[in-house]
C-alpha cells in the first residue's frame, strides 16, 4: 500500500513538474537581507525584487554606504540571462542592469542562483508559493560626485517565492 501510494505520488509530481515546465512564465518575489563585506558585521543591505525569466525590477538600500549622510538607496532594472530558468529545480542566471540612486546613476552585474528549500521538488521545476534560497554575487558600479565607485556584495542572500 505504501509503495503504491509512493509511486502514485511520484507520478503525480512528475506530471505537475512537466506542467510547470511548459508554463514557466511565473513571477518571483525576492527579499535579500544578508550580505557579507570585508569588514566584520557584513553589510546592512536590503532589497526587494520582482523577476521573471527575462527581467528583474528591484529596489535596494545599503545602510553601510552613505551618500551625504544617508543610506545608499536606489532602483534598478536588470535584464536576466538564464542558464537554467524556472523550469529547472535549481535556477542559475546572470543579470546586467542599470538604474538610479540617491548618489547618482548605477549599473550592476549579478551572478544569481535560486535553490528550493523543499527537497521533494528536486527533479522538477521551481515550486510555486514555497520559499527558496536566493544567493547572489553582485557588483554595483556607481557614479558618485564624478567618481566611479565599485561596490561588491560577495554574497547577498535572501528568500524567493515564485507565484
Amino acid at each position, binding site marked *: 500500500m505504501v509503495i503504491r501510494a509512493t509511486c502514485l505520488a511520484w507520478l503525480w509530481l512528475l506530471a505537475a513538474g512537466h506542467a510547470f515546465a511548459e508554463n514557466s512564465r511565473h513571477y518571483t518575489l525576492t527579499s535579500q537581507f544578508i550580505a557579507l*563585506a570585508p569588514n566584520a*558585521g557584513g553589510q546592512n543591505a536590503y532589497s526587494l525584487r520582482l523577476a521573471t525569466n527575462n527581467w528583474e525590477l528591484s529596489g535596494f538600500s545599503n545602510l553601510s554606504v552613505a551618500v551625504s549622510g544617508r543610506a545608499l538607496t536606489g532602483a534598478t532594472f536588470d535584464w536576466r540571462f538564464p542558464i537554467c530558468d524556472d523550469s529547472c529545480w535549481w535556477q*542559475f542566471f546572470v543579470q546586467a542592469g542599470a538604474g538610479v540612486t540617491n548618489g547618482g546613476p548605477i549599473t550592476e552585474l549579478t*551572478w544569481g542562483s535560486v535553490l528550493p528549500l523543499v527537497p521533494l521538488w528536486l527533479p522538477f521545476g521551481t515550486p510555486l508559493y514555497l520559499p527558496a534560497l536566493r544567493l547572489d554575487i553582485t557588483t554595483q558600479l556607481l557614479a558618485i560626485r564624478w567618481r566611479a*565607485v565599485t561596490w561588491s556584495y560577495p554574497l547577498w542572500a535572501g528568500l524567493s517565492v515564485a507565484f
Partner: protein
Amino acid sequence: MSRNLPRILATICLMLFGELTLAAPAGSAILAINSTAGVLQQPTSHYYHAIYGAEALLSTTNEGFILRASYLERPEFKDAGYADKDFGWFGQIGTKVTKATNHGLYAFIGGGRMGGYVKADAGHRGDSGETGNHYLLPGLTAAMSYAARLGPVYLAAEQQTFVGYVDKVQLNAMVGWPYNFFQFKIGFLW
C-alpha cells in the same frame, strides 16, 4: 558525500549544459588564446590597480560549454623601501547566454586563488626581522563577459568577481573578501 561528489557535479553539469553539449558535432571545438589588461579592485581598498594576464579557452562550437584557465597579476610596485604585488589564477566553466552568432554575452563560474605579498627591504624591517607578508587565498569566482569574433580575432570586455574563502569564524562575523576585475581581452581563436 565525497564519494558521490563527482556524480553530483556530473549531474549538475549535465542538467545545465547537457542539452547544448550533446547538440554540438562530435569532436568539434574552439580554442582561443587571449591576452588581458584592465584594473583590479582589492577587498579593502577602493583604488583601481592596473593588471594584465593571459587566458586559454576551450569551447564547443555552439559555445554551450566552455572551459577556461586564466592568470593575471598586478605588477610589483616599489616605493619607500616596500614592494607589493597581487596575482591570481582561475579555472572556470561557462556558457553563452545570448543567441546571436559571432558576438554575445557569456557567463562563467569556477574557482581559483588570489595571492600577493608586501616585502620590506633591509632598512625597513621591524624589530622582529620580518621581511614582509604573503597571502594565498582560495575562493569562488564568477564572471560576465561580452565577446565578439572578427574572423580569427577574439575581443572581449569582462567583469569578474573573486570571492575569497572565509573560515567559520569569519563567516559568523559576516566577512567576505571580494576582488573585482575589469578587463579587456584580445586574442586569436582556432
